[in-house]
Every structure is written in structure tokens, then in C-alpha cells.
């Protein structure tokens, strides 16, 4: 069953291997074609799997395809197997589908880059790792995929390796992600210790009978898994790497740091929802962190000037909404928002990439302006992305976000605080994205650089994503029917006209706020900046979180290192080693005094010796 799904993994892996071995000798067209084709094949196979589910040809709960038994050690056995079920197919559709579109876009975006084929080999490697992550049938391969996407992210953030800031950002992202990986590994240890297996289906079946709700063990497992989820999805307190990750090429930001990899945390919790339902406390924690991150990141996005950073904070904020949804047990809604977010956020990033490309690598929105004339198509697509992000009625973001907002009050664990914070996050969303929109596209150009519209190969993906951003919201029911086979529960649609109206207007209020500040002249803006100066500084400096981490972790670690280097290393270890050396030398020098080189002295000693021995023999 589903053995053909292995080609979803093999195809991008083959693309990665071919591009990294033979990429240098390839022409750009060929390397680009190979990179796109390998992902395209994966997408087609995913479509086949989807069709077989929809036509009912397969068991609707999916199944496991095993290649062979890989390791057997005592009671532990690990199969080379993948789990193809509605959830993994749903994720794969996003990964390979959006991934394919972004691959095509990259051909245009990276056309002048001297290391074109290396870029595509990394991209293919990422698609392979991410597919492995979602296809894994057990915690072991989940962690392998988890770590490999972290590596792919590292390689792609630091792709422009001559840029110091990019290399530093890559390092930061990697370290943060490894913290998460460690959490995952510990969780897997605890699971194996208590349940004796790592396979998802067996673990979930056994957990229901083994653990009581809010058991210590199940809390430990879920919290350690959560560390991995928070690190990967850039939630507080492991969020600082995502904004820095914008140093990478823009298609990477769109693919990895918006549409796919950062959603892995949401996927993980949805995948393990059986475990989390046994730990209501952790669920509550997830929802809280999610909603706090949503407004926390949203507030930072309101004052940043780098177009990509704004969108990155927006990604964190939207991920916060997804975590809120899974935390409240609304898995299908979270996945729905994950999908619509993948579309409109990839669209926003790629449109921003088009702007950056058109302005010769300018990312500061203060130096943009009036682009609606010089880049008409990008203008339209960015506007569509912004509307979808802000939740403008009838765009895709409207449906998914509205569902989260209303359920944050009406879900079993929902309450008025979650709802109010989520509404606040939604207002911020409308505000910050239209702030960027007005800065970049309205008014007059602020620099002499004449912007130019991007080539067709970049515009076409934008058009496709714009179409999806507008229409994907109508697929909510279908997605619900499809995913119910995994989650077992339907999306709930509470009827509450009042909350719906408030939720609907939240995004609009944000948009109107942005219009008020940024369309009607600068005076009001400067005035607001002055009276809110301390708050503004706090937000602009990202709540000083980086500085706090620097002060609390990096500096003490460095100081300890310096102290140990000076005290323990120099005075302790070095001294001991040196002493051993010099003492041996000193003793040797004393002994070597006997080696006078004088033959007669030797003879004398010999005689004295013999005589002494004789005396002993004779007189004792």
C-alpha cells in the first residue's frame, strides 16, 4: 500500500544528489529545470495519493508502507517505513505544491547568482527533508527529518556566505533549532522508556491505555515535544532566530521561513494530538504561548523598516494563531490556517522578493514608494496577499482566521482573554501589513532607483499564489472532511453574529489605522512616535530580547569560558603539564651528571662498587 509514495522522497533526493555532484557543469536552464522537475514529480505523486484517498480506493485512514526492517536490537525494532494518511498528504500538498511554485520563482530570482545550481541543490534537499519529516511513521524518522530541515535552513540562510550577517544568522538559527532537536530527542527517549515503541500508531494506541490525563510522564513528553515545536516554529521564547533568518535569499524565506518548515511545530502537535489531549495542561500552555506570540510578534512587526522582517514577524504572529488553534483542540482549523497562510505568506514574500529584485536589493521600506506605477503586477499580488493576511472578507485568510477567532471563545478551553488577545493580534495584522503596503506602493518614489517589473518566470508564480490566496478559503469544508479521518473531530462553526462581526472588523480596523497613519501625511506619524517614544523604542528593539539573551546566556557563557581559560586552563591544566615536563627534565639533568664522560671515573666507580659488594659478601 502506498509504496509509490516513496518516490515523493526519492525524487528531490535524486535532484539534490545530481545537482550537487554535477551542478557546476550544468547550464542554468538545465540545473533550474532539474531542480523544479524533481519537486514537480513529488507534487504529482502527492496528487495521485490524494486522488486515491478522495476516490475511496484506499483505506480512508491511510496506511504504512514499509521497505524493510532497518534495525533490530533486543525489543527495539525500527522499520524503514512511511505513514501516508490524510494529514501527511495534506502537508505534502503544501510542501511540494508551494515548494514547486517557489522553485520556479527562484529561477528568475537567482538568475544572476554565480552559484545557481548550489542553491537549487539545497532547495531540493530541503524538500526531501521536509517530506521525510511529514511522512515519518515513527518518532525516529520524524527527528531525522526535523534535524535535516534545520540543516537545510542553516545552509540556505547562510547561502550568501560572503555576507557576515547571513552567516551569523544561519548559526543563530541552527543553534536555536538544535535546542528544539534536543527536546524532541528527550521526548522520544521518555516515550520509548514507557511504551517500548516509537511508531506513531502504536504509541498513540498505547498512550490512551497507559497514561491518565495530566500524568507526570505525559506532561514531560508533551512539554519536551513542545520545545522542539517552539524552536522550529519560532514561538516565545525560542523565536529570535526567525527575524534574523531573513538574511537568506527571499525564495528561501518564502519556502522555509513562511510556508513550510516553520509550520512543522503545528504539524507536530496536530500529529501527536492524541498525546496532547491526555495533557490538558500542556494544551493550555500551547494556546497561551501561541496567543502571546501572536500579539508580541505583531507589535514588533508594526515598527520595523525592513520589508522582509515585517513579514517574518507577521509569520511568527500567524504561527501564534495556529498554536492557539491547536492548543484549543481545533486541529483542522489550525491546518486550514496553516494552508491559507502558506499561500498568502509565500505570496507576500515572493512579492516582496519581486520588489527587492526590482529595486536592486533594497529592503528598507523607507526607500521605497510609488511602486504601484512601476511594478503594477507585483502591486496587485502584494495587495491580494496583504488583504488575505489581514483577513479581508472573502479572501482565504478571512475564513481561516475568523474560525480561529470565534473558536478561541467558543472552544471548550476557550475564554474571553484568548479571544480578546487574538482580536488584538488581528488588528495589528491589518495595521502592520498595510503600513508596508502604503510605504512601498503608494505615494511617490523616495529614491532615484528606477524600479522595473520582474520577468514572467517570477510573475507567473505570484499570479498562481494570488489566485490560491483569494480562493483557498472556500475549500475549508473539503479540508475538514478530509482531515476528520485523522483528527476524528470536525471544525466547529459556532453561530455568534456578534463575535463574527467583531472578528471581521478587527482586520479592517487595522487597515483603517494604517490608512490613517500612512496615507494622510507624516505629521500624525511623527506626533505618535513622540508621545509613544518609550513604547516605540521597545518595539523597534524587539523588546530587547536579543540583548536579554545576550546578557543572560551568551555573556555569562563567554565570561565563564574566559575565566576558565585564564584560571583553570592556564593555572591548572597548563601548569600541571608544564610541571611534569620540567620536573622530568630536572631529574634527568641530575642523573646525567653521573655520565661525566671520564673513563677513569667510571672505572673507579666500578671498583668501589665491586669492593662494596665483596665487603657485604665477606663480612655480613
Amino acid at each position: 500500500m502506498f509504496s509509490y509514495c516513496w518516490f515523493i522522497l526519492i525524487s528531490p533526493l535524486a535532484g539534490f544528489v545530481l545537482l550537487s555532484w554535477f551542478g557546476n557543469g550544468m547550464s542554468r536552464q538545465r540545473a533550474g529545470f532539474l531542480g523544479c522537475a524533481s519537486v514537480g514529480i513529488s507534487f504529482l505523486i502527492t496528487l495521485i495519493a490524494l486522488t486515491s484517498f478522495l476516490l475511496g480506493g484506499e483505506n480512508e485512514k491511510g496506511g504504512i508502507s514499509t521497505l524493510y526492517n532497518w534495525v533490530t536490537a533486543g525489543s527495539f525494532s525500527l522499520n524503514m517505513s512511511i505513514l501516508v494518511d490524510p494529514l501527511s498528504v495534506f502537508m505534502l500538498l503544501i510542501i511540494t505544491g508551494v515548494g514547486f511554485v517557489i522553485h520556479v520563482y527562484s529561477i528568475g530570482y537567482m538568475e544572476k547568482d554565480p552559484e545557481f545550481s548550489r542553491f537549487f541543490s539545497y532547495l531540493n534537499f530541503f524538500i526531501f527533508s521536509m517530506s521525510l519529516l511529514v511522512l515519518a511513521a515513527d518518532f525516529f524518522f520524524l527527528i531525522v527529518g526535523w534535524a535535516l530541515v534545520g540543516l537545510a535552513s542553516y545552509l540556505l540562510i547562510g547561502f550568501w556566505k560572503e555576507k557576515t550577517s547571513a552567516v551569523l544568522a544561519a548559526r543563530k538559527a541552527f543553534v536555536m533549532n538544535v535546542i528544539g532537536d534536543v527536546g524532541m530527542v528527550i521526548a522520544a527517549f521518555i516515550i520509548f522508556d514507557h511504551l517500548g515503541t516509537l511508531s506513531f500508531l502504536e504509541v498513540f494506541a498505547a498512550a490512551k491505555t497507559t497514561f491518565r490525563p495530566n500524568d507526570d510522564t505525559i506532561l514531560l513528553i508533551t512539554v519536551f515535544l513542545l520545545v522542539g515545536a517552539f524552536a522550529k516554529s519560532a514561538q516565545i521564547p525560542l523565536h529570535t532566530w526567525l527575524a534574523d533568518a531573513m538574511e537568506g535569499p527571499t525564495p528561501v524565506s518564502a519556502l522555509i521561513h513562511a510556508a513550510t518548515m516553520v509550520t512543522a511545530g503545528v504539524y507536530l502537535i496536530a500529529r501527536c494530538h492524541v498525546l496532547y489531549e491526555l495533557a490538558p495542561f500542556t494544551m493550555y500552555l500551547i494556546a497561551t504561548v501561541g496567543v502571546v506570540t501572536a500579539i508580541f510578534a505583531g507589535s514588533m512587526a508594526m515598527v520595523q523598516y525592513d520589508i522582509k522582517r515585517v513579514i517574518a514577524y507577521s509569520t511568527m504572529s500567524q504561527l501564534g494563531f495556529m498554536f492557539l488553534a491547536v492548543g484549543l483542540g481545533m486541529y483542522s482549523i489550525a491546518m486550514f490556517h496553516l494552508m491559507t497562510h502558506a499561500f498568502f505568506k509565500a505570496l507576500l514574500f515572493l512579492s516582496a522578493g519581486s520588489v527587492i529584485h526590482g529595486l536592486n536589493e533594497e529592503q528598507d521600506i523607507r526607500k521605497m514608494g510609488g511602486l504601484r506605477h512601476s511594478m503594477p503586477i507585483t502591486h496587485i499580488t502584494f495587495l491580494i496577499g496583504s488583504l488575505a493576511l489581514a483577513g479581508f472578507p472573502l479572501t482565504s485568510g478571512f475564513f481561516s482566521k475568523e474560525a480561529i477567532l470565534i473558536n478561541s471563545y467558543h472552544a471548550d478551553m476557550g475564554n474571553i482573554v484568548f479571544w480578546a488577545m487574538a482580536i488584538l493580534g488581528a488588528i495589528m495584522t491589518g495595521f502592520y501589513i498595510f503600513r508596508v503596503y502604503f510605504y512601498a506602493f503608494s505615494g511617490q518614489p523616495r529614491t532615484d532607483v528606477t524600479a522595473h517589473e520582474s520577468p514572467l518566470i517570477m510573475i507567473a508564480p505570484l499570479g498562481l499564489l494570488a489566485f490560491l490566496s483569494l480562493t483557498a478559503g472556500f475549500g475549508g469544508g473539503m479540508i475538514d472532511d478530509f482531515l476528520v479521518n485523522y483528527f476524528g473531530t470536525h471544525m466547529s462553526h459556532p453561530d455568534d453574529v456578534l463575535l463574527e462581526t467583531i472578528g471581521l472588523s478587527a482586520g479592517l480596523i487595522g487597515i483603517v489605522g494604517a490608512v490613517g497613519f500612512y496615507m494622510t501625511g507624516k505629521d500624525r506619524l511623527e506626533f505618535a512616535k513622540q508621545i509613544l517614544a518609550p513604547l516605540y523604542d521597545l518595539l523597534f528593539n524587539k523588546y530587547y530580547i536579543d540583548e536579554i539573551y545576550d546578557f543572560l546566556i551568551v555573556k555569562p557563557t563567554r565570561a565563564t569560558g574566559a575565566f576558565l581559560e585564564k584560571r583553570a586552563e592556564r593555572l591548572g591544566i597548563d601548569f600541571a603539564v608544564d610541571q611534569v615536563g620540567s620536573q622530568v627534565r630536572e631529574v634527568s639533568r641530575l642523573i646525567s651528571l653521573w655520565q661525566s664522560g671520564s673513563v677513569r671515573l667510571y672505572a673507579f666507580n666500578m671498583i668501589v662498587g665491586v669492593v662494596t659488594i665483596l665487603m657485604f659478601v665477606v663480612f655480613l
Partner: protein
Amino acid sequence: MGHQFVLLISATIFCVGAAGFLIRKNPLIMFMSVELMLNSVNFLLIGFSSFQKSMDGQIFALMIMTVAAAEVVVGLAIILTIFRTRHDMDVDHINTLKG
């Protein structure tokens, strides 16, 4: 001749040889001192051999003389080589193995 006489002569010759070896600086003389010490032992062996009416000691003496001859051959060759290379026969100056 009694036992004491043989022992006394032998000890005297041995001490002369040992003293000569320690005191003199010329390797040739030192060599001769070594021969003296060897021969004092030979004298002892032969003396006691005749006291005990046994030929063992005399055979030992012959053996020692043979070994001494072989030793002299090697030793003289070394001394000759040292002289050829250094033109200096003072053993106190030959101290390159000093620690």
C-alpha cells in the same frame, strides 16, 4: 710458598693494575694495567691449581689469556682509530658521551 704468599702477590699486582688504570691518562698504559689485573687473577688461578693438584685452574688461565689477546686486538684497533682521528691520546679529553 704458602697460600698467603700467592694471595698477597696476586692482590698486590691487581692493586697495581687497578691503580695504574685509574691514575694514568695514556690509553696504552691503561691497557697494560688491565692486562696486569687479568694476569694477577691468572696467577691466583695457577697457584691454587697447583695447591689442589687440579688442572682446572690452569685451563682457566689459558682461556683468560686467549680472551685477553682477542680483547687487545679490538682495543688496540680502537685506540689506533681514535689517535688517527683526534691526534690526541688523553682519555680525559675523550668525553663526548658526557651527559
